[in-house]
């Protein structure tokens, strides 16, 4: 049974006709072509499908697209701003937090939500914040380093803007 939904993804409103059994992850990738969102385990264990739904990081493989109707979604593609890569993105590149890259989108989006609520996280806060996102390459150390670096960049940026 197909139905029409409206969703806002990365600031752009889309009207889509979707089958009720399709997940938000499938629609983001297949209908909108935003393939930065990955699909891995598809049962909520790995976190590669992480998107931000109304300010909360969620597994988009466990959200029906029809449930997302009327809601606001940010994918990894939505983090790039006018000044280029988001500090989290550049920190992941510079700190060597990306190896195969399959977990990176989800990892960065979970970290983004963490930093939105907690601009000065401890390493333990960071580990907890990304604990729903699995990485099989890095051993997490460099990912935690990158989030720490990004947190510092973001707070100093904010300081500069305010000043």
């Amino acid at each position, binding site marked *: 049974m197909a139905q029409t939904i409206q969703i806002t993804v990365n600031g752009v409103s889309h009207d889509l006709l979707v089958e009720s059994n399709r997940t938000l992850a499938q629609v983001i990738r297949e209908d909108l072509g935003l393939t930065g969102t990955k699909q891995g385990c598809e049962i909520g264990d790995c976190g590669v499908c992480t998107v931000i739904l109304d300010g909360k990081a969620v*597994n988009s493989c466990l959200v029906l697209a029809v449930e997302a109707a009327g809601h606001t979604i940010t994918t990894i593609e939505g983090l790039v701003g006018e000044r280029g890569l988001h500090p989290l993105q550049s920190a992941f590149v510079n700190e060597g937090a990306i190896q195969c890259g399959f977990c990176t989108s989800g990892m960065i989006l979970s970290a983004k939500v963490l930093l939105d609520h907690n601009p000065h996280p401890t390493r333990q806060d960071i580990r907890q914040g990304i604990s729903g996102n699995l990485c099989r390459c890095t051993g997490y150390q460099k990912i935690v380093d990158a989030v720490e670096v990004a947190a510092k960049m973001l707070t100093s940026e904010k300081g500069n803007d305010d000043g």
Partner: protein
Amino acid sequence: MLLPKFTFHEPETLDECLSLLDRYGSDAAVLAGGTDLLVNMKKGLIRPSVVVSLSRVGELQGISTDGDSGKLRLGSMVTMDAIATHQVIKKHFSILAQGAQRLGSPLIRNRATIGGNLVTARPAADSHGPLICLGAQIELTGPSGSRKVPVEDFFQGPGTSVRRSNEVLTQITIDKIPPKCGGVYLKYGIRKTLEISVVNVSVLLCLEKDKTIAHARVALGAVSPKTIRSPDTERCLIGNPPDEKTLKKAAEAAAARCQPISDIRGSAEYRQILVEVLTRRGIEEAARRALSRKV
């Protein structure tokens, strides 16, 4: 991994929802957070022809506390993250916030709901022990009205509860906890996130002025077909101070009366030892919290 086809309904009122469930009966699956239901549907374990989503039913949302009585009301669609981070719950019903905080991962907690965690009725679920200790009441609403069930009587066994297929779990209510009470949820697993308990133990203690235990509730998870209370342990505690002798007796009583199974997560013998260790730690920590007023 594709979801099978189904007809989707998203009612906006409870009445509309109840008439859908009445019409479709057991052909309909109720979708709350989806973190269990959609997984089971993807794996082909269940194939409902109709899915009724609760996410737009306003009556099922929200956390509120009654100003005078201090009673807590949780709409069944409240997420585990909302419970784990809610200031009043963290302060006055902390054992529940502790349980919610240990469920799944941050991503799962942003979707998984308290109602869903009850209805799925898993023996290792993280909210059951805390809710049993708090004496929570569950409200079920069907075509002929609402009924209240104490959480202890809600579960029947793995995956089954007293909810009928035409009923919706609408809300959970919890009476205020008196002062000088402390609660703790201890979960033992191999890792800290995305883990199903090998054993979990919940303890709520209230102390008299002279530090003897006036009230005790102890619940054990993942050791029987549903989370159970341990009346023997509670009897060992009430009327005694939380000293070494009481702790030992109470922890041994918890282990002696539970009959866990052996499975992929742990053997029966191992679980029994864990029950003793965790019950002991739980009582010690709950007593500490009671003295510093951390429910």
